[in-house]
């Protein structure tokens, strides 16, 4: 009889930290064959169009970067929070909060000089997202309320706030749809390359990756955040004000998510609609985990997911596989990555259990 046991293993060398996520991605792509085939798609044709649709032409490639921008921000948001064990599942709501406030200023900020409007919109979006995240953080630190549930529920509250406003004061005059007016020209993100939608959002994302990396590794705040996430009791013992650190982390996290929302508004949609985010906040969770909570890992995961999301559109058109395969792949990637992460610390040991001897039969 065989029994499997999970046993601690010797630590893996440094290169494993890069190889593991790549291996996870490869395995995920292989597993994706199952839903593709189940959908009746021709396997190689599907893979081809998946990658072609994301990388095959100049426009597609730029689209991939465009789609990656919000993912980088929500991925960073979630990674930052998880690192401090603040389970921010509310990135979606924080993203919407950012988009909401950005819309308001973007439409009504006529009194602001043009060159200041965009920076103000960005700042406002950041703080709106940060504010929305500070609520569950306060609940957690002061009232012991579970952050998973509170951040989640606030997502739904924010969706409805947005709905109330889009059917109300923010609604475009004369329209019966829940959409806002278009924002002012000065509030729109500059387009960087002609014949594409490539905007500064992606560059902002790169800057954010660098900033967060610097913050995490080189600053007092980064150290404190890491300590609180590792063992909040010890951090408290060591004199760290864990409440303040949690709040700061939450605000920064929410702010990053808010920036994702600002980007979608000011670079792509130019007006607020109900569907401004197809779940970027939730994707951020998968991206953060796949990136092992490291800023550069987040960047690479975001690009990977962007490839999947953008490619799935083309694949769907050419092979009939539903676009939701992107979400399926996301979910699978997360679980595969979890298993692989486990294997960095543990290994599976096979035990051969001897059959029992008959009674009275003793050895030698």
């Amino acid at each position, binding site marked *: 009889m065989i029994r499997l046991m999970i046993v601690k293993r010797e630590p893996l060398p440094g290169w494993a930290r890069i190889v593991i996520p790549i291996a996870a991605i490869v395995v995920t792509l292989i597993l994706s064959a199952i839903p593709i085939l189940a959908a009746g798609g021709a396997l190689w044709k599907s893979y081809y169009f998946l990658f072609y649709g994301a990388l095959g032409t100049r426009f597609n490639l730029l689209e991939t970067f465009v789609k990656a921008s919000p993912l980088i921000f929500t991925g960073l948001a979630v990674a930052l929070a998880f690192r401090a064990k603040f389970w921010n599942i509310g990135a979606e709501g924080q993203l919407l909060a950012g988009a909401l406030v950005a819309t308001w200023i973007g439409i009504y900020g006529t009194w602001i000089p043009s060159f200041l409007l965009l920076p103000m919109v960005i700042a406002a979006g950041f703080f709106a997202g940060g504010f929305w995240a500070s609520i569950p953080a306060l609940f957690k630190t002061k009232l012991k309320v579970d952050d998973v549930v509170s951040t989640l529920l606030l997502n739904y509250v924010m969706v409805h706030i947005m709905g109330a406003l889009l059917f109300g004061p923010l609604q475009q005059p004369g329209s019966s749809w829940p959409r806002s007016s278009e924002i002012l020209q000065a509030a729109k993100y500059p387009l960087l390359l002609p014949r594409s939608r490539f905007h500064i959002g992606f560059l902002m994302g790169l800057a954010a990756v660098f900033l967060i990396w610097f913050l995490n590794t080189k*600053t*007092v705040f980064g150290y404190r955040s*890491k*300590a609180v996430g*590792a063992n909040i009791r*010890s951090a*408290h013992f060591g004199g760290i004000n864990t409440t303040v650190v949690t709040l700061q982390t939450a605000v920064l996290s929410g702010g990053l998510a808010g920036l994702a929302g600002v980007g979608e508004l000011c670079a792509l949609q130019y007006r607020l609609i109900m569907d401004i985010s197809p779940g970027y906040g939730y994707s951020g969770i998968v991206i953060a985990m796949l990136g092992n909570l490291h800023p550069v890992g987040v960047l690479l995961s975001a690009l990977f997911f962007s490839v999947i999301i953008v490619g799935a559109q083309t694949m769907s058109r050419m092979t009939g596989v539903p676009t939701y395969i992107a979400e399926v792949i996301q979910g699978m990637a997360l679980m595969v990555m979890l298993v692989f992460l486990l294997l960095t610390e543990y290994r599976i040991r096979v035990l051969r259990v001897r059959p029992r001897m008959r009674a009275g039969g*003793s*050895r030698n």
Partner: protein
Amino acid sequence: MSDDVPRPVAEMRSIEKRFLDVIANQQIDFRIYRGEICALLGENGAGKTTLMNILFGYYTADSGEIFIKGEEVNLSSPRDAISRGIGMIHQHFTLVPAQTVLENVIIATESRKGFFLDLKSSKERLLELQKRFGLHVDPEARVWTLSVGEQQKVEILKALYRGVDILIMDEPTAVLAPAEIEELFQTLRILVGEDRSVVFISHKLKEVMAISDRIVVLRGGRVVAERKKEQTNTRELVNFMVGRDLLERIERKKVPPGEPVLEIENLTVLHDKGLEALKGLNLVVREGEIVGLAGVSGNGQRELSEVLFGLRVPLEGNLKVSGEPLPWGDPLSAIRLGLARIPEDRIETGLMTDLSVEENLILERHGSEAFQTRGILNFRQIHQFSDRLIEGYRILTSSRDAAVKSLSGGNLQKVILARELDGRPKLVIAAQPTRGLDVGAMEYIHRRLLEEKARRAGVLMISEDLDEIFALSDRIIVLYEGRIMGEVPLEEAGREQIGLWMTGMHK
């Protein structure tokens, strides 16, 4: 010529067990006979608990055989061991505090009537066992209300309820006062009187000599000696345990104590369940002295250390460190006032095991001007600091970036010591500083504490280990149910007197 060598009731042959890179058990042969108390002696880390966990089915040996009542067995889980009459009481109790004694005892037994639990007849059976073995505890009491000694009785009852033939107890006396130890011994004698067996794992020589019939010594994962009690003495056993003669009483200088560094006045603290853990405590520690606070765990020590560490807010009281008031519930203030704190559960409270040695070393100082400028960490200074500490305290680690969880128990404590003592503190609060450590680490820590005393710091050592208390303290104070039972300088302290105080009895 009759073959009158009795067959063992349980036998382990050539047992090998390794964890990662540590060989815990090497080619061990171990036998237990009917009606005997066999002591498994050895210092912390010698492999005693691992060996018994294998007999109990909790661990599986890498190789070797186990025979119970002559039959070779394959124990893949405690369920197998229990069904064969083996019971084990671990160092950390396996009780559910929120449940009643009865519920804790009858879990996973056949006490039922149809679908439902048969509480009535189970209770009767339990009471009968209690009478027979002298283990009286209220079956309806919730376990969290019981003292540690009473909880141990529940553990024994659990094993008896399941018809245990071989009872394994892991360091049972570590948590008991002297009078309770006597009670335990009486219970064990009744057990072996019924032809059952007891394996008594301990590193406490006195108790081992008092109760056992036969003694097996483990060192470094091997059996190094096996003796009948009459054939040996403590000196020989120590030699087997440690491989050398233990250091004589540590040479201590007589240093006249100076100004008070810690003044506790009228301290009243509630514990988690809302009752008073400390009742109007008054205590003073002076420069250049080590005050040993003795007592069985559960009498307020944890709450006292938590208040001093800044982790718990008292109901009332005054705390002063070198004359300066110590604000309640503020670890940062404690650090700033020059308080070195050595917590009793180093992993949960003092360290962040996933972080590196360096990151743990700078926990309290990372915000100081030396290590950061305007929020950005100054890594050159930090690296210098951690290298100096690693060398100075001889912390065994592959590098300063190694994760703390890879360190051994003694080295974990060294990390904490390095961090706390480097700043030349005025006051050191050490809670159970050598718990779970081997002799080498223990000696190191004792030496360091004495160095602090020589440096004119004041040391408050809270310990359940009477040997340690007697070895280091200048003054011994006994804590019982939140109050000080007695205070006496070392020269006048007698073990019997201290033992009485620990169980709440005055002269």
